[in-house]
């Protein structure tokens, strides 16, 4: 039988390193927010004739739009993000672009005022916070017959924060490299990941509950490991089937829900890892109160790897 729990410090080390990279990226690059959260206008246009991104940028700059973000889609459309445009500004801009580049088709236009943006950002933050608290309370309740039910809730929440941090870190990097933005679909994706990741965690916890009741072993570490191995097949298979559909979404639906699909992709991978390797092992660490041992182990492991 695999010993998963026994490698717990390694898992913490891997997750810690990934999260650290994520946090550093967040601190260095920050997150780029979409118009839903920071207001502005986003226009999707396509031109009949060939127009390069640089030409478009120069033309926009000459019209006084210096602070624009331009992205080209696979189909040759352009996303043009500007400050909030009034209908008059927009007509003027489109007329000028048509005069320079010939006929253009406006495929999509989205404009958000600062007031709406603030509301949306606040409510999205509230939603994420309420989701975390709701899940903590629910799991504590669902495992109320166990000794220390709060530990289960707390470990599930730590796993969930772990997944969210990794997704944020990945988006900080994607933002810096490709100019990807955090938008409402991103938040929707994060919440879906939270639900998904906790779903996995609960399946493992459920097995721990059952195995404890059956008295599989008096050693909590063995019980947790048995439960993990018992649910391993299910966890991996469910993750795989979900990944199949997410990849299909990503490949065939493209730009518009790209953010959403990528958050799901990252979240499912991180969520599978955390629900198998972080949440249950944290439970063991907490039960055995071996936080100190982990700290002592860290420099040792560095020495060991160097020695090998």
């Amino acid at each position, binding site marked *: 039988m695999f010993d998963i729990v026994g490698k717990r410090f390694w898992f913490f080390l891997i997750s810690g390193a990934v999260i650290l990279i994520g946090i550093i990226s967040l601190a260095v690059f920050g997150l780029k927010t979409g118009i839903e959260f920071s207001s502005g206008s986003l226009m999707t246009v396509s031109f009949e004739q060939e127009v390069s991104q640089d030409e478009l940028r120069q033309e926009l700059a000459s019209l006084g739009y210096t602070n624009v973000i331009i992205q080209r889609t696979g189909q040759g459309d352009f996303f043009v993000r500007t400050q909030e445009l009034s209908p008059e500004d927009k007509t003027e801009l489109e007329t000028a672009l048509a005069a320079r580049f010939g006929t253009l088709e406006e495929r999509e236009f989205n404009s958000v005022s600062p007031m709406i943006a603030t509301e949306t950002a606040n409510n999205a933050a509230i939603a994420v916070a309420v989701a975390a608290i709701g899940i903590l309370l629910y799991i504590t309740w669902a495992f109320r017959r166990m000794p220390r039910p709060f530990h289960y809730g707390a470990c599930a929440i730590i796993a969930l924060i772990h997944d969210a941090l990794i997704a944020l870190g990945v988006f900080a990097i994607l933002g810096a490299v490709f100019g990807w933005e955090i938008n*409402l679909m991103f938040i929707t994706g994060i919440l879906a990941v939270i639900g998904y990741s906790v779903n996995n965690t609960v399946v493992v916890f459920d097995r721990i509950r059952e195995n404890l009741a059956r008295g599989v072993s008096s050693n909590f570490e063995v019980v947790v490991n048995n439960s993990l191995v018992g649910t391993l097949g299910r966890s991996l298979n469910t993750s795989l089937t979900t990944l199949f559909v997410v990849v299909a979404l990503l490949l065939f639906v493209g730009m518009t829900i790209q953010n959403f699909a990528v958050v799901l992709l990252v979240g499912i991978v991180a969520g599978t890892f955390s629900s198998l390797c972080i949440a249950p092992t944290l439970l063991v660490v907490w039960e055995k109160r071996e936080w100190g041992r982990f700290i002592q182990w860290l420099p040792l492991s560095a020495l060991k790897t160097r020695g090998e």
Partner: protein
Amino acid sequence: MPRRNTLVFILILIIFALAVSVVLPIDEGILGEKGMRMGLDLQGGIHMVYQADLSRIEPGEEASVIEGVMLVISNRINPLGVTEPVIQKQGQDRILVELPGIDITDKEKERLSRVAILEFGELAADEEEAKWENELGRWKPAMAVVDGREKELTSAYFKENTYVSQDNLGRIILAFEWDEEGSRLSEAITGRLINQPLGIFEGDAPLLGDDDLPIAPIIRSVITDRGQIEGLSYDEASSLSKQLNAGRLPVSLEIIYDQTVSPLLGTDFIEMSVKAGLIGIILVMLFMVIYYRLSGVLACLALIFYGSLVLAIFKLVPVTLTLAGLGGFVLSIGMAVDANVLIFERMKEELRTGRTLGAAIEAGFNRAWTAIRDSNVTTFIVCGILYWLGSSIVASAPVMGFALTLFIGVAVSMFTAIVVTRTFLRLFVGSRLARKTSLFSVYSGGK
């Protein structure tokens, strides 16, 4: 037990037949209803939120003012030919306007929310500030003092009976009448501006004639009660006339949210999501059959049942499908097999301990149930919160659509796994196939 199971099996077949008959054809509904309801991002259209400036309205009057605004907007929308416009009050001072499936010009969009559609201007002196500038000169609003207050001349003073006609030379004219206050204003202004041009403007731009030149007639005589605008194309004149007759807004409106999607873009999205959904389903089915063999085949049948039932519910509720909603549906396909996977894994464990198929099925379902229940509750919590988030913000459609489709998807998947898959599996109990446990994916050389 077997007889009861056969009954449930027949019931499942009936539900499946009903679901399919509801779903097909996709673009038509049952009992004369419309087909699958598509959101703005899939069928194109406009979603706008206006904020009304109520600062000058007497306290207590706000609600009736907003109602008046909504009526005018609705009158202005009618001539555009939208089949199902939505005009809703949001909060105290906001109005949501949804115009599905149409593509209107920016000019038409602007006209919906303009207080007075046309404004009149006179040439500004060199040192004066100009509001408009064009090839004919620099213009300022034409103003006069009426009832002791200086007022601008606009189409707000038109009676709501403008019409399009032809003069005896065959030119198109847009005829209008001033109301009582308007005629006094017009009398004062045109009296002062004899032999000078009167500019006509719409927003920041001059009103353009058939020849693309600004319309600015020279005033020959004092105009009191009625007048006409010449030089417009017929289409322009008749559209303008309809908008003018829709009435004026009592307060000014600001667009605080605008989402406009070309209907052409939407059809692409539907095609792409259907493709993604199909490929996703095929991959999931292949995986299930390869890994779980006969159980996997049953899970695939359950998945087909699942898909039809979910789509039928979407149509019956009805759920407005958005791109995000379709994403939620596609995602739920991946998650729908989760309950099956949980049960099959449990069954495999039970079979390994040497139980018969019948006993393994029952034990597998019973043991997996708490995990299925508790783990899906967390998804339901998240769906509830997403639904709240969606209802609390302006850009609501994607978030709410996703929450709703995911919720329906997960709920139906619990039902299909527990009822449908179990019934299918029980059909095999006692049959010859049941003895070949390899069909249920137990490796003989297993751990």
